[in-house]
């Protein structure tokens, strides 16, 4: 099945092997050219995130963390330097190839949830799989499984506006996991949530991480960053500190994400070996 849809995608040539360094930023510069003034968003950033890390990127607004988030999410391109995602130099890719990269390599979780309105939770979760050309039935089954794992099976047919903030974010997480991407990229995922829901969501990220996924969370809240095991601080477009968090906050253990993020089976992985 998977082989079939892989072949269909000609952009798949860029979806190459998995590397030890999932993210490598090489002298990354982003300059916003507003005509009269040139604003430096990122100033020669060098950063490596290894596979399986749980990283918080911190900074105040204007520190460049959102710019970095956009580039790491392949939504934007650097002005200078290189960004290697899973060994792929994204600077060279066409916008359609970037779409394919986002589809397969990245699971997005946004501050404002970004679910498609008037579309059921189930259909929202299915969306990345739709663009991955996964057959309808398989898609629906997996979306249902994912919703069950985030505890929203009964809400599968609900529209986003019928769900609470926390529930919406859980749908978004389920959606982010749909194509089993190596990288989960969360931009202020708790920014619109109350404390209880925030903790719940962060616990979920912890579980996802424990199962071997690489999670990058952009936040400005210390207590959110505390869940991660590495904190990178930004200021004025530069990294000011990059340190390990020796004692990440533990999840309450309420959420058993055992099957939540099942890494791809060996048979599927085979052809992606070698780096």
């Amino acid at each position: 099945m998977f082989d079939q849809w892989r072949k269909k995608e000609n952009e798949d040539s860029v979806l190459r092997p998995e590397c030890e360094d999932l993210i490598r930023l090489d002298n990354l510069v982003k300059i916003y050219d507003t005509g009269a003034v040139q604003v430096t968003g990122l100033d020669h950033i060098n950063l490596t995130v290894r596979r399986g890390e749980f990283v918080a990127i911190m900074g105040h607004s204007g520190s460049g963390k959102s710019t970095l988030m956009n580039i790491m999410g392949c939504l934007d391109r650097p002005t200078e330097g290189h960004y290697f995602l899973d060994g792929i130099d994204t600077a060279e890719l066409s916008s359609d190839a970037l779409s394919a990269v986002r589809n397969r390599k990245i699971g997005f979780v946004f501050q404002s949830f970004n679910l498609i309105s008037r579309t059921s939770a189930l259909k929202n979760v299915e969306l990345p799989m739709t663009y991955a050309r996964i057959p309808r039935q398989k898609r629906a089954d997996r979306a249902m499984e994912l919703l069950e794992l985030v505890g929203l099976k009964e809400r599968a047919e609900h529209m986003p506006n019928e769900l609470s903030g926390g529930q919406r974010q859980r749908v978004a997480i389920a959606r982010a996991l749909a194509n089993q991407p190596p990288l989960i990229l969360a931009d202020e995922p708790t920014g619109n949530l109350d404390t209880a829901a925030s903790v719940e969501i962060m616990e979920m990220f912890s579980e996802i991480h424990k199962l071997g996924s690489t999670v990058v969370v952009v936040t400005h809240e210390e207590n959110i960053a505390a869940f991660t095991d590495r904190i990178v601080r930004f200021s004025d477009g530069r990294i000011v500190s990059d340190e390990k968090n020796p004692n990440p906050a533990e999840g309450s253990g309420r959420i058993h994400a055992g099957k939540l993020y099942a890494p791809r089976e060996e048979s599927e992985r085979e052809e992606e070996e070698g780096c």
Partner: protein
Amino acid sequence: MLIENMAMAFHAIRANKLRSFLTMLGIIIGIGSVIAIVSIGDTMRTMFTDLYKDIGITQAYVSYGYWNDDWRQSDYFTLDELELIREAFGDEIAYIDSNASVSTEVHAGRMSMNFQFQGITERYMDVQPVNVIYGRYLNEGDLLGRRKNVVMSAESAEMLYGTENAVGRTFRTTIYGYTDEYTVIGVYKKEMSPFQRLMMGGSSDTGEAYIPETILTWPNDTFYYCHVFAADSADMTDFMNRLKAYIAKIKDRNPQDYYSNTAVEEMGSVDSVMGALSAAVGGIAAISLVVGGIGIMNIMLVSVTERTREIGIRKALGARTRDVLIQFLTESAILSACGGVIGVTLAVTLVTVLGMALSLSVVIRPAVIVLAVSFSAVVGLFFGIYPASKAAKADPIDALRYE
């Protein structure tokens, strides 16, 4: 993916029911009026064709051209000449007569009414069959003997005598200044469609009867027209040319001096006029399709702007430019095609109901329906191109930031 896109399109159309309906309205009206007009046109043409079939498609008239100045007495036709022509053409001529007719007042008892007498020969029955319900049709004896016998239509008999069985009844009338008594020897009925009745004129208060043509050609046996029914309609042009050539020969004239008029020609010209008319009106109606298309473009542009964020999300999740383009193109095509389907339904209902009310058999060509719905989809596609490409080009970051 096509099914996905169609499902998404229907979803989006349903999400904004009123707006979608109002958007479709232009297409509904456009397609509806085109279908209605074309169907009405087709129905009229079919009715005219049937009408010409009823009155005889091989029917033709020949006369000495009205444009000629040197009219002579010998340019009139005589019954002997008709006989010559019939012999010369043999089986090619199914029927020939003088086309003589007279309109006059008849009196029976205290009853008086106007009658239209058509002069025929006994063989007229072969080309214009009627159902003789009482008595008999005219025969050779009536013709040769110039007997004052008539075959009357059942309606006329009813009006004149108060009974359809008027065989043996008599009336007095004056033809060419001679007042005589005539006898009804037969009563006929002719099946006619309401439309044919309408087109044939013949107000209901004028009676109709067949009379031996020899009575109407008498006293000098000359007349202006030669009225024929060819045996076969296959090559009327050639037949008419030869007929005129033969007539010219026996009359010592040139074939081009003769005027002729055939039912086939007449039908052809009616048909082409009707065709052109319905094409023209249909064309005007089609302009409303363009207006409808612009309406769709307008609403699609609004929709694209409203859904900028959705487009951003889709792109972030892996939609390619092409995916977004196709999504919005599908939506506008389906929106428009839905309008087309509704328009066709309305038009077909309207025309059918109208046809039933007028007891006409309505002609609705399936090809026209298929064409109309396809065309409406094409209109949607065409006017969807700009909005869809606008959506597809959206930058995901800007789109995601859009509030």
